[in-house]
């Protein structure tokens, strides 16, 4: 261990610069202690205390480098310190001074005053606070996040009402404002039909169908899944309805929801009657008579809702809901089902869209098929084991219990495709019913993996006939995934692709009815 010094005469440097150099050389290996100081009496006394006493005399204007350590390390340290003293610090320049990206709403708005909507998908625990901030700052809000208490939702929506701002959500998956997709949304033509919906895929189905029918959307507003709950009272739906009623670009208004609480429904329908423009209402599963009012047209399925809205926009009579199969469709289905073994009896629905599962259950039930589901409609039963189907079973794979810790099946269809494979290989399955959802936010090529699943099932089944596959593709021609291309590939793989979810459910029911008839005939034949 040695102590070495180097003195630079009349070489004043700022003490802070010197402390930096001290720190650098102190960090060298085999250096026990190092200091670079001006030779003031105080500093020299500190050197003595630190065990770095300098025998050479030095004055206040002399710069002292003092090091203690191995001989080699001391030399290295002295050389490094001398170099550091001579070198000029790297110039920062103006370019290195940049404002970091804002990390809070208030700051973002201060930097960007034109911002008028906050799209919030942070975890539910924090999302409510962010929504309140956005409202305080005068912005409208779409809350994609879920897991916000009803009490908090009520406070947020009451505040939005006072502030005259839109709040879509919590649990609002989709919206189209001024033609811009928010969350999961399809590329839909702009037009004169305004939609307010409490169900995400319901709104997607209606808007896509309107687009397919050649019309367009002025605005599609989501309310979130809890808005029509008694505790919330439909505040977002009322606000949306009011905004569309006043919007000169909206000629027809569509309301889509699961059936609201009675009081809430009455209030909304009363407001709808005063909208001053045609209003089409579809409360999935509600008795049409309970909804019907003067000035309100009741629709019977999501697709029918679109058809009615388009007709009203064109000042045409509202079309009736298609209840019977066309001869052509029946022929197609019968051909597909012809080779099915008689014991194949069940409808197995595997859905990514919650509203599609709900609507399919309603329609299958109407055709006589009571089913099990993880989200059962009235009259259906709760599934016993959510990983295993028995009898007619329709599952919503987008429900919380399937998505915990993994992406929604609309984003990543892996788990959903596995379930489809399981249903295909079950000897009781007559028909597998599913949906494919396109648009912004959805998987880039949702069909690709599904086709592999189908071909794998065919290999496993060998010569035996697979169940009938029935699907519908919710999307538009302008969607990034290209609806026509998705449909073509599904058909090539032997999937029967319906125009809409309601039609797909109808087709599935038809296949199951055919199978039931076949078994009855078989029993009758055996009895003879």
């Amino acid at each position: 261990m040695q102590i070495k010094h180097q003195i630079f005469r009349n070489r004043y440097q700022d003490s802070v610069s010197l402390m930096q150099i001290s720190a650098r050389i102190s960090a060298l290996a085999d250096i026990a202690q190092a200091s670079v100081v001006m030779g003031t009496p105080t500093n020299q006394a500190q050197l003595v205390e630190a065990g770095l006493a300098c025998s050479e005399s030095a004055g206040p204007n002399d710069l002292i480098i003092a090091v203690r350590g191995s001989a080699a390390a001391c030399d290295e340290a002295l050389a490094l310190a001398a170099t550091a003293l001579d070198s000029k610090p790297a110039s920062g320049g103006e370019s290195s001074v940049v404002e970091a990206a804002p990390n809070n709403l208030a700051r973002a708005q201060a930097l960007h005053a034109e911002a008028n909507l906050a799209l919030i998908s942070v975890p539910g625990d924090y999302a409510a606070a962010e929504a309140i901030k956005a409202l305080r700052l005068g912005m409208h809000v779409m809350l994609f996040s879920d897991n916000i208490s009803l009490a908090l939702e009520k406070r947020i929506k009451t505040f939005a009402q006072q502030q005259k701002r839109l709040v879509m959500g919590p649990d609002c998956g989709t919206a189209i404002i001024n033609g811009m997709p928010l969350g999961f949304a399809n590329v839909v033509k702009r037009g004169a039909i305004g939609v307010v919906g409490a169900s995400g895929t319901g709104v997607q189905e209606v808007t896509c169908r309107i687009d397919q029918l050649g019309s367009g959307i002025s605005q599609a507003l989501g309310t979130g899944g809890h808005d029509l709950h008694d505790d919330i009272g439909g505040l977002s739906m009322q606000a949306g309805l009011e905004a569309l009623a006043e919007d000169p670009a909206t000629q027809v208004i569509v309301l889509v929801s699961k059936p609201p609480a009675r009081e809430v429904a009455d209030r909304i329908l009363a407001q709808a009657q005063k909208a001053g423009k045609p209003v089409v209402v579809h409360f999935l599963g509600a008795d049409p008579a309970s909804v019907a009012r003067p000035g309100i047209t009741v629709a019977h399925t999501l697709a029918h809702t679109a058809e009615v809205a388009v007709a009203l926009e064109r000042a045409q009579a509202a079309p009736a809901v298609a209840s019977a199969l066309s001869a052509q469709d029946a022929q197609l289905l019968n051909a597909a089902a012809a080779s099915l073994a008689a014991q194949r009896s069940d409808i197995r629905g595997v859905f990514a869209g919650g509203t599609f599962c709900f609507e399919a259950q309603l329609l299958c039930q109407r055709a006589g098929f009571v089913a099990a589901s993880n989200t059962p409609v009235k009259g259906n039963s709760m599934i016993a084991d959510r990983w295993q189907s028995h009898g007619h079973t329709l599952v919503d794979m987008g429900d919380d219990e399937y998505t915990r810790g993994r992406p929604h099946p609309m984003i990543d269809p892996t788990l959903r495709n596995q379930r489809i494979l399981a249903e295909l290989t079950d000897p009781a399955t007559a028909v597998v019913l599913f949906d494919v959802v396109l648009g912004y936010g959805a998987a880039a090529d949702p069909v690709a993996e599904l086709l592999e699943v189908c071909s794998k099932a065919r290999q496993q089944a060998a010569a035996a006939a697979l169940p009938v596959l029935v699907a519908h593709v919710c999307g538009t021609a302008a969607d990034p995934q290209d609806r026509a291309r998705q449909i073509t590939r599904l058909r090539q793989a032997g999937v029967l692709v319906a125009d809409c979810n309601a039609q797909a459910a109808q087709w599935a029911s038809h296949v199951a009815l055919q199978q039931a008839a076949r078994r009855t005939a078989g029993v009758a034949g055996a009895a003879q």
Partner: protein
Amino acid sequence: MNIRTSLFEQPLDVINLGLASFADNLVLAGGAATQLDWQPPALGDVAAGLDLAWLINHPRVEAANQIAFERYLAAQPALIDVQFARDTLPAMAQRKLILHAGPPIAWADMCGPMQGAIVGAAIFEGWADSVEAATALVEAGQIDVEPCHHHNVVGPMAGIVSPSMPLWVIQNTTNGSFAYCNFNEGLGKVLRFGANGPEVLERLHWMTQELAPTLQAALKVLGPLELKPIMAQALHMGDEVHNRNAAATGLLLKRLVPALLRCGQPADHVQRAIEFIYSNDHFFLNLSMAACKAMTDAASGVPCSSMVTVMARNGVNFGIQVSGTGKRWYQAPANPINGLYFPGYSAADATADLGDSAITETAGVGGFAMASSPAIVKFVGGTPADATQNSRRMQSITLGSNPAFTLPALDFAPTAAGVDIRKVVDSGTLPIINTGIAHKLAGVGQIGAGITTAPMPGFIEAIRALAEQVRLADGGAA
């Protein structure tokens, strides 16, 4: 037209928090979207986050802040006199009282330098003749210890003020109120670092008996000395008037010398006074602090205001006060200091952040004006660009800026001023404090310097308290 409907007639301009793909999709679709670099605010405390949310852009808070900030800007601190603590602080006339830096703290919990300094002050006052006797008096509760801030006083480091000590008397000529600070003793063995040996006491006696009357006489000749112009000028000369006061001390001396020469005090007293100030580059710090206290105190006590009016450390905890809730303290353990150490010392020797001098940052100088003093940022190995960046960053957590203090490196932009607790908690950006580092043992003195930050938990507690106040003002609704 309904505001909601009017959204349909504006270009949609989205701020996206959360899934970045939603913003990407909007841009792909030809829309406008800004992605937030979002983090849970308030250290993830959901309830505090909700309290914060209701305070954002709250009309009552905005109105209160405007009043508080205008009062801060309008303050004109002037040095008007030198007075002894016992003559100017009513509480000192009635009992044995010693003031200390930072939020309240019990004797047993104090850091070494603060205990050492209190003992030194007790001996200096003649209340005890030994360290042991002085300690016994404090432990027996015969000497009260209270924060400087409770008496409109500020003090650097241990911040000790006892009745016989002289104080700078600063008056805010706008509202007439007063702020005080003790005298700077210089570097080395000094009371503010807990040294209490004979040379320390001897210097204190000299300051009391000779320096104070001399400066008092000089100020009578000079008349009120406006402090903001001196601070502003010093900011243009490389000071940030917290950790670097070389220019400001020179400017002060320039004003004092002619008055000292004409004040009629004995020539050797005047000579020693000039030499004392001349040899201490930090001499102006205590005036800077009192001026800052006068400015931020003017903003204190505006109900519902979220402006920080005090930041102070007692060597254990960092305390803040917020205008709306007046003198109430919100405390948290002090954050570590990122700094450089004198030879022979390391972070292991350091006491936690100490002193009332963070009042300078509270008033928009010190760390907030770092761009004017690149040398300070070098304490943590930074560059002048970092200094500039720091000053800019502070703009994002303040109510506004102070045109009285401009920064050449920012093209003479005014300094960020008036820390807003809402912005701190919402952004996670903490106020920067330039600070000296004291040895944890009494009397060793300064062992380094560096940069630290005000700790977040105190701001979060303040948010909760302010939210409660605003709720009550709103009529008590949930």
